[in-house]
């Protein structure tokens, strides 16, 4: 039932291949590599190409890729497990060759593959022959939901616990100070003070209780339906037990417990300093990015974990660490990744993009052998840096001047449409682009297709006048370099654009820049109008203008614009956004996350960057500079 199973090195050399049909699969596999693996979409391992579904698995230790392909209409449930099995088998069989990097030998894997495939298929057949049983809880959608929500909680709670811990320490200080002052003043009695302290600590206990709650469903997950009652927390009875807040902690027992449990936090904090001396590895890298106090607390789990491990193996482990045969597992990198994700978000990368990027980095790193003197943090950081540079480097050539030149040879105007939400700087950057084009000897026609906002046409007319003053016809053989095509307000934008393109063709103008009205991504009639404009005119380039200030909103804007263009065009291959203009780049300092978010969503390059108000403030994006600002 499998059409193709292939094992190849990351360098692209096929080691072994199984094919059940004589079809040529190379384009499909190449498409998988180009549009999934190289786009940092590593989180999801399935990919549809024409009539095939392709699934892949990366082996980061030996730098291998395992790809399986089958007809899209087939529902093969065993594929994921089968991929794993094959990976294990292949690794076991050729371990020596793979470790030495000897890829040129012959891999006679067909026999093993056939046996494994037979086992897998037999299992499926047996399953199919069995009378159909009801879906168990684990298989149902609902269980997945709970797990998903649980994972989210898990990520959040430890952090909140830490925060609360920190607060606790602060609260302690404050309380102590308060105690001193009040004692000297003698206005408050000791009982009230203690109660105050307890109240504060009581607050801090809550997250611990929450953690206990979230962890328990994890343990109960396999028991099936019972787990469901944990969905939204425990019963009322348990709540009373778990609630250590001031109201319940009135009794002596509660008080004792509170004090007992809060004291270790101080010890923990004291311990932190002593331990960081020996195991400073992870800290070195991270110390650059976080404030010291935060870092101390955030690094604790990692340090403690490594300390626990080294105890188990004693001296041997020290040498092992030196030689560097440590294989990274998901758990090892999770802490660092979480931190990286938070860092990315703080740099204005949209939250879910940051999560996806980190997922992709995790898939890339899982199973990788750590180098001799590399720490986990630095490895993760380097991989993330590589991933971001890779993401920001354009996946195709962008050379507008070259393309415009070619269009000129074909006697047609090169057409660019600018679209985007309101107030991001479409007209301003359009003027800058036309200045750049004029400087390079192209004659430009600006089409005023914003027939809605008052003053939009006048704004463009002013720009035209100014550009013509800068480049007077006398300098260019008596030809007017910039012209404006306008039909006033209230007309159909698509019609005006078409007339403008025809006008440009008739008068031998080289480039047509179409300015559209700003529209919010949710405004359906306007999005429909934009889709129509693009469908009717088939421009050479559709540029989305977005400001660098946006955070999570960038995702919404771009996906909805792309979606609208796809939905409303009623074409087989609709024109989508081809490139991005990132404006107001001068206002954001090092919070360059929007660049990453936007390129991740569309997969399209950032063509221009607007860095100011004058005509010369138009730049190219320097991927490396942006990434170093991002990870600073």
């Amino acid at each position: 039932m499998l059409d193709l199973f292939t094992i190849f090195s990351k360098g692209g050399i096929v080691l072994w291949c199984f094919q059940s049909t004589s079809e040529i699969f190379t384009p499909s596999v190449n498409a998988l590599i180009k549009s999934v693996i190289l786009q940092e979409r590593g989180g999801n391992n399935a990919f549809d190409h024409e009539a095939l579904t392709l699934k892949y698995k990366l082996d980061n230790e030996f730098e291998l890729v395992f790809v399986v392909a089958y007809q899209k209409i087939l529902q093969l449930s065993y594929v994921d497990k089968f991929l794993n099995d094959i990976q294990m088998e292949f690794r076991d069989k050729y371990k020596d060759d793979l470790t030495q990097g000897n890829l040129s030998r012959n891999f006679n894997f067909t026999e093993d593959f056939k046996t494994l495939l037979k086992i897998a298929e037999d299992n499926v057949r047996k399953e199919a022959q069995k009378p159909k049983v009801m879906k168990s809880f684990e298989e149902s959608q609902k269980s997945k939901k709970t797990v998903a929500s649980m994972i989210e909680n898990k990520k959040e709670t430890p952090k909140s616990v830490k925060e609360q811990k920190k607060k606790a320490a602060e609260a302690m200080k404050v309380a102590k100070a308060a105690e001193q002052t009040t004692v000297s003043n003698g206005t408050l009695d000791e009982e009230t003070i203690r109660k105050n302290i307890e109240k504060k600590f009581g607050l801090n206990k809550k997250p611990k209780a929450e953690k206990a709650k979230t962890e328990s469903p994890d343990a109960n997950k396999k028991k099936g339906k019972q787990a469901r009652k944990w969905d939204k927390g425990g019963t009322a009875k348990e709540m009373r037990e778990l609630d250590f807040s001031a109201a319940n902690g009135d009794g002596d027992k509660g008080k004792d417990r509170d004090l007992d449990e809060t004291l270790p936090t101080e010890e923990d904090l004291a311990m932190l300093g002593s331990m960081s001396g020996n195991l400073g590895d992870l800290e070195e890298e991270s110390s650059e990015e976080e404030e010291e106090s935060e870092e101390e607390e955030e690094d604790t789990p990692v340090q403690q974990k490594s300390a626990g491990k080294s105890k188990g193996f004693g001296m041997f482990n020290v040498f092992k660490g030196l030689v560097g045969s440590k294989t990274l597992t998901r758990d090892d990198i999770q802490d660092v990744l979480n931190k990286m994700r938070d860092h990315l978000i703080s740099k204005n990368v949209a939250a879910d993009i940051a999560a996806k990027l980190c997922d992709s980095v995790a898939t890339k790193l899982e199973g990788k052998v750590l180098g001799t003197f590399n720490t986990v943090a630095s490895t993760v950081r380097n991989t993330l840096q590589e991933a971001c540079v890779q993401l920001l480097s354009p996946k195709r050539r962008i050379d507008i001047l070259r393309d415009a030149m070619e269009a000129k040879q074909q006697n047609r105007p090169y057409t660019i449409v600018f679209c985007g939400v309101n107030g991001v700087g479409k007209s301003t950057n359009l003027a800058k682009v036309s200045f750049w084009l004029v400087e390079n000897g192209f004659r430009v026609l600006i089409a005023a297709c914003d027939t809605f906002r008052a003053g939009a046409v006048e704004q463009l007319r002013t720009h035209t006048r100014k550009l013509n003053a800068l480049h007077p016809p006398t300098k260019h053989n008596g030809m007017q370099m910039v012209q404006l095509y306008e039909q006033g307000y209230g007309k159909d934008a698509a019609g005006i654009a078409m007339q403008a393109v025809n006008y440009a063709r008739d008068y031998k103008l080289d480039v047509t820049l179409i300015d559209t009205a700003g529209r919010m991504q949710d405004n359906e009639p306007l999005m429909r109008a934009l889709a129509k404009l693009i469908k009717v005119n088939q421009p050479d380039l559709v540029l989305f203008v977005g400001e660098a200030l946006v955070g999570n909103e960038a995702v919404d804007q771009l996906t909805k614009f792309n979606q609208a263009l796809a939905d409303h065009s009623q074409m087989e291959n609709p024109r989508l956004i081809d490139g991005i203009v990132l404006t107001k780049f001068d206002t954001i300092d090092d919070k360059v996350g929007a660049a990453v978010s936007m390129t991740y969503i569309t997969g399209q390059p950032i063509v221009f960057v607007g860095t100011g108000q004058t005509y010369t403030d138009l730049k190219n994006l320097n991927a490396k500079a942006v990434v170093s600002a991002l990870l600073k």
Partner: protein
Amino acid sequence: MSRQGNVEFWYKTLEQGFANGDPSFYAILVALLVGIITLFVVFIRLGKKNNRRGILMMGACDGGKTLMFSRLTANKYVETYTSIKENTGNYELTGDKTGTLRMIDLPGHERLRSQYFDQYKASARGIMFVVDSASLQKDIKDVAECLYTILTDGFVSSAAVPILIACNKQDLTLAKGAKVVQKQLEKEMNTLRVTRSAALEGTSDTGNNNTFLGRRDRDFQFADLKPFTVDFVECSARGSNGTDGDGELNQVIDWLQKIA
């Protein structure tokens, strides 16, 4: 003190030192010796000019780099997909020159190209630019752009790294010959050097590389790239029927011998 007296004085001190068997005297002697040896080693290292052994195999996607790499390093025919990572291997020189060259096959995908090029360019003894001669018409802009970035690179131009343009896939019937490829590339580079030197600056202060290739007063020619030597050869990594030991890479091998 006369010169002879000076020598005599040192000789005497030496003799006295040996006679006394003073440990600090021996220590000083050993230290001097070690210092001299170190200096020697450093000079030898520096004196050996151009010890870069890497041959970078570059070019756009689907040009046949990985297959050619496999042919040169292992003399083996392999199926290939788009590379995600670089391949490295050794090529044993034959004939009058002996030794090995380190072949580095870089991924051709646009997203990876520049990263890997930056990583490996410092070790480049030569650059082999592999072109798909059959689909050149279609991909000419991308191919030329890739070549342009290599030629304008600071390191490559300062070290005058020799470049070979290998017109691969000559086994296909529609493949263009080396002369045609050269002509087309020259024409495309001619426009490209105009558009690229007018490209916008980068966002950071480094700016973009606006080197003007060739001579300004006439059309671009590879012969005008003075410090560089750019050679064109025809080859076919696949060969006539795609088996081990097949493939026509004689001219490529000649070039490797030449620059080694």
